[in-house]
């Protein structure tokens, strides 16, 4: 059942490319929409027991080593949501039907990559799907073939290649002490070897590779340039989900299912997370470009997730996964607002914008919700996940880090409030009188994402029951 998540987008790709009298070029958007909605429906509605059900006809041909657990479910849900947001944004921002067709195809490929990453039970398979998502995203970043986008894509390519080489070297060390790369083979081998140099070095290299992909300090050099240079619909996809799944989810999997927790590497990871929070927030205070500010804010928020991950208690891991989901939702929301502004005003410089909420009410209101959730204001979703992270840090005895995370929330609030004031409130800048609200796709997406943020925050007890507790049960301490 779970392998349908990969096979259905693949089938969609094949169908899209059988040219029946040019009909499918126009219908590409609707077919892609159907596939993504199907994925969301399956995650939201399917009872857990049904995931492991096997289709007998398929079982004759294929034997995939894939399974779904609680963390994978959250990831797949987030992937579906952000893909939906991207598709609706792109519907408005891309004008030619041929380019829309290519975009839907590439989006399906990214979907295959990220779903496969969530389902994989083998280290090399994870690496393979990371590469699938990455190479598809290079093409998406360079989609408009404008000079800035091409340079951004090239820079991302270089850093991604570095990360790949690190991960591959780690994999060869893993083969050396474990004989295979699947989780079932590596887990017991790590437990048996208990702190010898191959296991430690392999974990360190793999963690470095994943940290490069998630944009954590000091490996964040590519992130602001790439998020700014990419077309905004690609930024939604990159910031919302690709960076997080290929970087942060891989780290979560490594710590939870494969390598377990190693005290020195955990301490290093926590330190890097805290450094990311600080540097991201400080840099965001001084930015003049909207997308660049959002990029630095992403670095800061991913720092929270990494900090919680380094802590290692079940509550911390659950908080990290929950913040992962929330960040996917509110960061996509903020980038969708940036897309709306870009579509209507054609500029991203904050100094040129002002008083937009008079003309673009939906964008203004949803961006307020996004900012408040990012800063961790109750009762929105961001508040609960940050609370869980700070509580987990306190309980684990890391009170210094807990206080630091609390104070950094104030910084987050500061730069977002300043952004909100300069862009949306205040007086309307003279050249912007003719600006109207963005197209139906973008505003609908913004409203949906804002509703999810508010809903998850308000209905937190249900979320706790359905999503968080199963994750806590998954994390078994050595």
């Amino acid at each position: 059942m779970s392998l349908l998540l990969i096979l259905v987008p693949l089938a969609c790709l094949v169908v899209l490319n059988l040219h029946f009298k040019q009909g499918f070029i126009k219908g590409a958007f609707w077919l892609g929409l159907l596939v993504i909605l199907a994925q969301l429906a399956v995650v939201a509605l399917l009872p857990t027991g049904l995931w492991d059900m096997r289709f007998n006809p398929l079982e004759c041909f294929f034997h995939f080593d894939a399974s779904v657990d609680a963390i994978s479910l959250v990831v797949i849900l987030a992937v579906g949501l952000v893909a939906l947001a991207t598709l609706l944004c792109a519907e408005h921002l891309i004008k030619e039907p041929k380019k829309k067709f290519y975009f839907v195809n590439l989006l399906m490929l990214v979907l295959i990559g990220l779903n496969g990453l969530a389902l994989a039970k083998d280290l090399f398979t994870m690496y393979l799907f990371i590469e699938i998502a990455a190479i598809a995203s290079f093409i998406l970043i360079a989609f408009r073939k404008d000079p800035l986008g091409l340079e951004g894509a090239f820079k991302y390519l270089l850093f991604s290649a570095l990360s790949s080489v690190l991960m591959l070297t780690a994999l060869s060390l893993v083969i050396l002490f474990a004989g295979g790369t699947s989780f079932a083979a590596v887990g017991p081998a790590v437990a048996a070897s208990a702190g010898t140099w191959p296991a430690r070095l392999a974990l360190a290299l793999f963690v470095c590779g994943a940290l490069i992909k998630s944009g954590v300090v000091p490996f964040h050099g590519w992130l602001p340039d790439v998020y700014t240079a990419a077309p905004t619909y690609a930024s939604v996809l990159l910031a919302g989900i690709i960076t997080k799944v290929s970087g942060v989810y891989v780290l979560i999997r490594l710590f939870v299912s494969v390598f377990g927790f190693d005290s020195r590497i955990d301490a290093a990871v926590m330190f890097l997370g805290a450094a990311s929070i600080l540097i991201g927030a400080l840099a965001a205070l001084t930015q003049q470009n909207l997308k660049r500010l959002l990029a630095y804010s992403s670095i800061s928020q991913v720092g929270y997730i990494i900090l919680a991950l380094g802590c290692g208690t079940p509550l911390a891991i659950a908080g990290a996964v929950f913040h992962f989901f929330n960040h996917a939702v509110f960061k996509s929301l903020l980038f969708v607002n940036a897309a709306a502004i870009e579509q209507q005003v054609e500029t991203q410089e904050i100094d040129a914008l002002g008083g937009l909420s008079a003309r673009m009410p939906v964008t203004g209101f949803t961006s307020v919700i996004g900012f408040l959730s990012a800063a961790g204001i109750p009762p929105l979703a961001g508040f609960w996940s940050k609370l869980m992270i700070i509580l987990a840090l306190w309980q684990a005895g890391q009170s210094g880090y807990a206080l630091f995370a609390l104070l950094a929330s104030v910084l987050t609030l500061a730069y977002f409030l300043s952004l909100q004031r300069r862009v949306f409130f205040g007086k309307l800048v003279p050249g912007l009188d003719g600006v109207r609200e963005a197209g139906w796709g973008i505003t609908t997406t913004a409203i949906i994402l804002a509703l999810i943020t508010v809903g998850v925050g308000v209905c937190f007890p249900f979320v706790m029951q359905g999503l968080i507790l199963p994750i806590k049960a998954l994390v078994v301490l050595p």
Partner: protein
Amino acid sequence: MNELASQLFYYYSVAIILVTICGLYCLIASFNLMRAIIGIEILMKGATLSLILAGYLTGNLGTAQALVITLIVIEVVLMVVAGGIILWLFRHYGTIDSQELRKLKG
């Protein structure tokens, strides 16, 4: 048996480390964007050799070769996409020398 394995591992990994240094130097210090891609290629060859070495030492050559074959497929597609990006950069700027690109961007 472990002695022989250690000796082999030692010599091969010295070679792999040196080749990795070559590739990194090429990647970082190059003017030309094509050279950076060649640097990535050299790095990946080092990674390929380390995978095969690990497979040979533990007797898991089946797994190692399967991984290497998949890795080579990934490499090819990466090169194709990189070549495409460089092609369009050339069409915009008329040069793929990274110093001149930096001058143009300002």
